[in-house]
């Protein structure tokens, strides 16, 4: 491991493995430490509860001086998450600090779920429903929660083989 970025990523992994935040796990891709896979559980007592959402983080050699790109792989319905899974989160953009590590990023993303910022919407529908029709918003969110279960084919509750395509079909 000969770049500062890689050293730091190993350190981040150690911290995440030894002191994982509740409802969060992640680890670097075995073939490429610059790509991480992560799973975030929706925070309890929110419409996102029970959802298990998958995401990827991609780092550059400038990490931690520049933030990673975080993308949801699971389909999301959230005012600050774009259709392609990328998210609009201040600490991943202009409020980034090299003092953040992977555990801090994933914790922020998790708390963003129930604390959206409708002022800078990435998903206009979600932002509007969140402001004007909270009930419908929550219904749509719960749909994505159910879809997140479909991502896990060997889950006991749902025995339906699924791919992300079927997951998308459910929304449509």
């Amino acid at each position: 491991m000969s770049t500062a970025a890689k050293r730091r990523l190993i350190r981040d992994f150690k911290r995440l493995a030894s002191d994982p935040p509740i409802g969060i796990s992640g680890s670097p891709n075995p073939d490429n430490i610059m790509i991480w896979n992560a799973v975030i559980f929706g925070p309890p007592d929110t419409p996102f509860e029970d959802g298990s959402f998958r995401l990827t983080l991609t780092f550059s050699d400038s990490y931690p001086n520049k933030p990673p790109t975080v993308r949801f792989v699971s389909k999301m319905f959230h005012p600050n998450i774009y259709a392609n899974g990328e998210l609009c989160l201040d600490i991943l953009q202009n409020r980034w600090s090299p003092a953040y590590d992977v555990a801090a990023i994933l914790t922020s993303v998790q708390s963003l779920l129930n604390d959206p910022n409708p002022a800078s919407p990435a998903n206009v529908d979600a932002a509007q429903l969140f402001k004007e029709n909270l009930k419908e918003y929550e219904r749509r969110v719960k749909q994505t929660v159910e879809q997140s279960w479909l991502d896990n084919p060997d889950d006991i509750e749902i025995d339906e083989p699924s791919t992300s395509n079927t997951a998308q079909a459910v929304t449509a």
Partner: protein
Amino acid sequence: MDMSNHPLLSSMDEPPPFPPSHPHLRRLDRSVVCQICKEPFQAPVSIGCGHSFCSSCIRSSLDVMKKCPSCNEPALEGQIRRNRALEEITDSWEESRPIIYELAQPPPTKKRRASIQESNSKPSSSSGTKRLKPNSSREGSGSRSQSPIKSRRSDDGDHNSLNGNGEMEDEEDDEVQELTENDEAPCPICQATLPISSIPLHIEKGCPPPKTKTNGNGVGGRKGNQKADWKKVFSGQGLGGKSKDKEVEMKRITKPNYSLATPADLRSILSEYSLPTTGDKPTLIARVQEWIILFNSNLDTSHRSSLSALRAKLSDSENSKKRDKEKGKDEMVNQLGSKDGLQKYAKEKKGEFERLRKEIIERDRKRREQEEGKGRGRDNAIEVE
């Protein structure tokens, strides 16, 4: 947790943490850690707001954004000041940590602790306020081991001896000659840098100038020359064909204006420090930028590395990036940028995501069990209220 057998986790040695019964010692551990690299300070410096970081960490951070990583206050490179006290504190904490770690253990280990203390007491008492070079002292006391990047090896196996061989270091101004990752060292007589194994023969022959394997015209602009250039750099020849270490002024390098600088300007900076001058402008800029950080932060510490060690670091990181590119790792990252690429990746890594999900479930179950065991009494108390 089954992440514990991940190959990456074993690749970095870390000292065991202090037990939770000693929160103040845990705090002390944290306080000598740089908030950027999350490792013990190397060449600590302070900026305007009073926060401290490793010199190289804050220098590369300020290259990207001009604010303090800890408090977000505007910060400039000109504010960087050496923090000598913090370096002293970090070094002495690293040295004494194993002893204190033993002292913090429960009683049964007392005997072992006493013997360790004894073996360590000699160097520390006789060195007074003066500092050992970290390589000998850190390894000798079994303290935190760092990766090849940060650890420095001593060319002397006798860890506890203070005499001779330059183990003691008083001032930061004399250039410290240390081993590079390539196991090269300066000849004690003529100072030419050579592989250690060939030094005895070299002296026997009366110190002939070291030979280069490649022929001398290295300053061309062709990309293929890079490897040969690095080779020459390490053989102590420099790209001009003679050793330049002695001529290099140990003075901070002023950053050029990268948007205005021509490739020729950049090459002239590089050749001044006997570095390869191959590659296109972005390559040259990256090399100059990284070199300036390495060189300038090396002036912010009492444990200076030799110029050849700095060059080795630069080449190491350049090579690592190049290898990643060749292996298509960068492409792999780009692939995730498209929606299809991302979904394809997700499908390939399905098992991995599933493992992560199960890990959370398993962990939550354990946590709940523990909390239920512990918290029942308290919950009742609240209910009564």
